C-alpha cells in the first residue's frame, strides 16, 4: 500500500508537469483552433533564457520576469505576426506544418547556438523532503502540483468567465463572424499567444529542475503533454490537469505493476480507449451538431 501511494504521489507530481505543458495545447485549441507542434520548444526556450540570465548573474525572480517579457515578445507577438497571421485563414494543416518546422529550427538553433548539453536548473523550491507514512515527497513536487492547479483554474475561468476569454474562443470558432461583430481579431489572437507564452514560462520554471534545460527537452515533454491534453479533453483546460495526472500516475503504476518495457503502452492504451469512446476527452465538450 505504501508503495502504491508512493507511486501515486510521484505520478501526480510528474503528471502536474505534463499538465503545465498540456495547458498550452488546450488554450491554443480553444482560443485559436490551432495545434502547436512546437509547444515543447516553447517551454525549452524560456528555460534557456532563464539559465542564461541566471548565469549572467540575475536572481531567479528577476530572470523569470525578464523571461516572461521576452517570451511575450518573441513567442507571443513575433510568432503571431510571423506565423499565425499569414496562415490563420488557411486552415490547420499549414499552421501545423509551420510549427513542426519551427520546432526543428528552435531546438537545433539552441543546440548549435548555445549548447548541446543538459544544464541543471535550480528550482524556486528549496530541496526539502517530507516523509509521510513511508511516502516521500519533495517540496518541489507539492509546489508544482499546487501551481499547476492554480494556473489551470485561472486559465479555465479566464476563458469561460471573462468576455475577453469568450471573444478569444469566438475568434477560433468563426473568425469572419467575429470580425463582423467588431471583435478585434488580431488582438484576440495576440492575447492567446501571449498568454500561451507566459504559461510556457511558468511551465519552464517548474519543469526545468526535473527535466533539465536541454535543447531537446521539448520533444518528450511535448509528446507527453499532447497525450495528456487528448485524454483530458482538448477543448477544456481542466482536462489538461486531469489528463496530465492520469498519464503520470498511469505510467508509474504500469512500470511497477505491469511491464516497464511497455509502460508507455499503458498511457497509450488509455489514450486509444479515450479517443475511440470519448474522442472529445474525459472532460471535453462534444463538438457541435453538423446538419
Amino acid at each position: 500500500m505504501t508503495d502504491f501511494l508512493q507511486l501515486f504521489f510521484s505520478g501526480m507530481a510528474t503528471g502536474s508537469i505534463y499538465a503545465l505543458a498540456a495547458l498550452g495545447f488546450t488554450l491554443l485549441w480553444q482560443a485559436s483552433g490551432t495545434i502547436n507542434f512546437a509547444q515543447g520548444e516553447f517551454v525549452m526556450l524560456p528555460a534557456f533564457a532563464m539559465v542564461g540570465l541566471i548565469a549572467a548573474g540575475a536572481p531567479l525572480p528577476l530572470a523569470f520576469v525578464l523571461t516572461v517579457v521576452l517570451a511575450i515578445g518573441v513567442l507571443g507577438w513575433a510568432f503571431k505576426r510571423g506565423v499565425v497571421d499569414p496562415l490563420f485563414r488557411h486552415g490547420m494543416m499549414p499552421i501545423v506544418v509551420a510549427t513542426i518546422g519551427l520546432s526543428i529550427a528552435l531546438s537545433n538553433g539552441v543546440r548549435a547556438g548555445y549548447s548541446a548539453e543538459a544544464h541543471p536548473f535550480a528550482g524556486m523550491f528549496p530541496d526539502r523532503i517530507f516523509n509521510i507514512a513511508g511516502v516521500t515527497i519533495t517540496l518541489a513536487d507539492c509546489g508544482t502540483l499546487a501551481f499547476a492547479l492554480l494556473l489551470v483554474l485561472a486559465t479555465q475561468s479566464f476563458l469561460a468567465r471573462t468576455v475577453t476569454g469568450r471573444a478569444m474562443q469566438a475568434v477560433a470558432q468563426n473568425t469572419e463572424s467575429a470580425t463582423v461583430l467588431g471583435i478585434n481579431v488580431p488582438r484576440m489572437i495576440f492575447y492567446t499567444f501571449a498568454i500561451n507564452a507566459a504559461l510556457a514560462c511558468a511551465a519552464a520554471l517548474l519543469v526545468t529542475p526535473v527535466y533539465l534545460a536541454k535543447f531537446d527537452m521539448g520533444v518528450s515533454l511535448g509528446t507527453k503533454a499532447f497525450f495528456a491534453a487528448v485524454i483530458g479533453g482538448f477543448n477544456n483546460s481542466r482536462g489538461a490537469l486531469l489528463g496530465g495526472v492520469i498519464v503520470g500516475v498511469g505510467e508509474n503504476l504500469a512500470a511497477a505493476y505491469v511491464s516497464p518495457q511497455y509502460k508507455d503502452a499503458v498511457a497509450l492504451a488509455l489514450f486509444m480507449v479515450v479517443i475511440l469512446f470519448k474522442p472529445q476527452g474525459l472532460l471535453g465538450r462534444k463538438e457541435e451538431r453538423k446538419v
Partner: protein
Amino acid sequence: MAANMNPQDTPAIEFEDVVAGYKDFMILNNLSFKVRPGSITLLIGPNGAGKSTVLKTLFGLLKPRGGRITLGGVDITAADPKTLLARGIAFVPQGRNLFGQLTVMQNLELGGITLGMKTARERIPEVLDLFPRVRERSNSQASALSGGEQKQLEIGRALLLRPKVLLIDEPSIGLSPLVVQDVFKLLRKLAAGGTTILMVEQNVKSALKISDDAIALESGRLVLHKPASELLADPHIERLFLGGAIETRAA
C-alpha cells in the same frame, strides 16, 4: 423617390465607381449608387449578381480596388469593420454566422462587445422580447438551434447595437412566414426611427412592399434604381421577378 432625390441631401451611403471582388476576380465594376438616409433600400438580382459582395465591400470585409464609398458624406473606403461599427453600421451576413459552441446568451453578449458589457446586458432582454423562440433557447449551444432560430438570433444580435445603418443580407432565409412578416415590420419601424437600411432579398414581392427604393444588380452592374412603389406597380413586374427578364429589358 430615389430617382427624384433632392440633390442637396447628403446620401446615407454612396458608392462611387467602386471596383471590388475576391483576390484578382473583380465582381463589382465601377458601381455607383446612393442610399437616402432613413430609407429601406432593397438590393435585388439573380444569384451571383454581386449583392452580397456589395454589402461585404461596404462593411470593410473586402477592400475595394477602386472608387469611393462614403457614409453620410464621410469617406469610409478603407475602413475596417470595427471602425464602421463605431460609426453605427451593423451587418447581418448571409448564411450561418454564429459561434456554435457558445450559448445563445454568450453569442448575444459578444454581439454587444463594442458597446461594453453593461450596456449589452441591459439591452439583451429587449432583443429577446422580439424573438421569443430565441428566449426559450437562451441557454442552449447556438449550434443546437434550428435554422430559423439561428437566423433570428443573428438578427437580434445585430439589433442589439441599435445601428444607424443596417446592412442585412437575405434575412428571410429559413424564417417562417409569420416571422418574416414580423421582421419586415420591425425593419419598417426602425426606418421610421431614422435607421437607414440596405437589404438584400430574394423574397422580392414582400420585401418591395416595405421598401422605399429598389436597386437591381446584374453581373455586378446596376440595371435599375427606382422607387419600390414604381416597381410594384410596374405591369412587367411578374416578368421582372423572372430574373432574366431584367436582362431583356435593359438590352
